[in-house]
């Protein structure tokens, strides 16, 4: 029985691992393979800072909230294990900032210690009059993806660096089940007008004195189009660009300027 995961970002690799963990015992002949034209450190996942924080609202989609909780709890369980450092997993506290009061997010009880900001804390952030403090998790893909790859390789999962042009191509190779984790380029395998790129640009700096994440929200500009600062284990990621429909993978000098100036403020 051959299963092929297409895509080696965080979704592809974690899916491959879950499948192998769950079915390998039940289906002894199970052979899993991972196909991807890009592997770490060149996947979309590698660009992310790695902060666990869903969008502000699940729009009533309870299934999503359950997925969030499962993920957070799973990672929390790994925190005390020796693997945590290798996985790039650690706790981090920080601030979400708003210019007006907003309803609590669907994930308020998933993260640790969720509370509103006090007036004294808001003094740190002129221009913002409301906010949250909570402790969440960081999962740095430059460590997590190699760790997942290592776990998969140990289980005998084979990796193929190859661009898959069609699902048919997989079946022609004798694959029985295809798991499509192709992320932003899924439209190339099967058109999906609902799938759009949300282009992000970041600046990575050395600022090890910053110990908290800071995520600002501009309800008009839209999610992640407002500055954010996310300290990693080595670099601090500065961002605040979210351009719907923009496929350009080159750095934009204008975006760089925007990020730098708004984050320094």
């Amino acid at each position, binding site marked *: 029985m051959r299963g092929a995961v297409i895509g080696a970002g965080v979704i592809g690799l974690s899916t491959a691992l879950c499948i192998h963990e769950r079915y390998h015992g039940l289906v002894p002949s199970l052979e899993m393979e991972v196909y991807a034209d890009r592997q770490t450190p060149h996947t979309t996942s590698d660009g992310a800072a790695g902060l666990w924080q869903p969008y502000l609202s699940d729009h009533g989609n309870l299934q999503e909230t359950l997925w969030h909780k499962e993920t957070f709890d799973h990672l929390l369980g790994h*925190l*005390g*294990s*020796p693997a*945590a*450092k*290798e996985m*790039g997993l*650690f*706790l*981090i*506290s920080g601030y979400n900032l708003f210019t007006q009061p907003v309803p609590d997010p669907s994930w308020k009880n998933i993260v*640790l*210690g969720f*509370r509103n*900001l*006090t007036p*004294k*804390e808001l*003094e*740190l952030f002129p221009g913002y009059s409301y906010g949250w*403090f909570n*402790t969440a998790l*960081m999962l740095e893909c430059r460590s997590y993806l190699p760790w997942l790859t290592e776990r998969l390789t140990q289980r005998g999962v084979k990796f193929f660096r190859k661009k898959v042009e069609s699902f048919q191509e997989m079946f022609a190779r004798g694959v029985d089940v295809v798991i499509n984790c192709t992320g932003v380029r899924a439209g190339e395998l099967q058109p999906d007008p609902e799938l759009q790129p949300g282009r992000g640009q970041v600046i990575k700096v050395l*600022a*090890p*004195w*910053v*110990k*908290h994440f800071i995520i600002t929200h501009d309800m008009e500009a839209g999610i992640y189009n407002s500055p954010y600062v996310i*300290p990693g*284990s*080595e670099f601090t990621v500065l961002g605040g660009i979210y351009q719907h429909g923009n496929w350009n993978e080159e750095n934009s000098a204008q975006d760089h300027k925007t990020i730098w100036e708004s984050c320094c403020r």
Partner: protein
Amino acid sequence: MVAPKVAVVGAGVIGLSTALCIAETCPSCSVTVLSDQFSPNTTSDVAAGMLIPHTYPDTPIHVQKQWFKETFTYLFAISNSAEASEAGIHLVSGWQVFKNTPKEELPFWSDIVLGFRPMSEEELRKFPQHRFGQAFTTLKCDCPPYLLWLEKRLKAIGVQMRTRKVADLWELHSEYDVVVNCAGIGAHQLVGDTELFPVRGQVLKVHAPWVKNFIRDGDGLTYIYPGIHTVTLGGTREKGSWNLSPDPGITKDIFERCCSLEPSLRGAQDTKVKVGLRPSRQGVRLQREVLSQGGVKLPVVHNYGQGAGGFSVHMGTAKEAACLVGECIAALQGSSSRAKL
């Protein structure tokens, strides 16, 4: 008196901040810092510099609270400015956990730090041996950066810094009009204060940049304080020990205690071991004294004995010491004008 000459003995956090306050409140004063040690070789350099106060049994609580509040406010402003990284001041959040519920649920400083509240059950799950906890955000002064930044500010306003071992405060009477004693643990020998005793602290400074939150056991013995480049793991409280040599058995014990609070520390690298002698006293000695020999007088202001709480109260005690220096100078000027009559 045209330009009163003030000597500050001691170049740790107390000496340097006191010198700064004196120079700022008395621009006509000529201030000199005298010390046999400067950063990175002071007791302050060993400390993590966390703003979590120590309670002094013999100092009124409202005074301690005032000192802490002044220090916190002063550092908070720096942490929120572009100078923060040079000064080594940064905010850090974390947890203080207790195996047994503490006698007082709310420490006197709970409304000065940020966001103080009891830990939730989910948060406590990370600490299975502890039953109660407090979460808050406070400030950390990394040393040497903070001391070096203070030295830079002092030099910029004309304060001199001299390496000199002062054996007796009286030896300064001919060169200086007022002497300020910020000698820390050195005051034991310098002024023979038998109420001052060392509380030995050994710490490990490790490279573990994924640790972003502080964790402190409420008993004050075990703590993990993330700084800019290193994480300080502690510690010990050995009353009466003058031993400045690191003890390998203690190193191992500190490491184990910290790993049981934060298992990921097992992956920490580049461990450096340091020892400091906290200049401890039942109450901070912050008072004037006049030394006199053969009709010659030397006003002295003592500012030492902050023990485990030096960083937490340094600005508050420095300001008060500067006021006392002002009183000494006024008294000298008063008596010198009387002499003219």
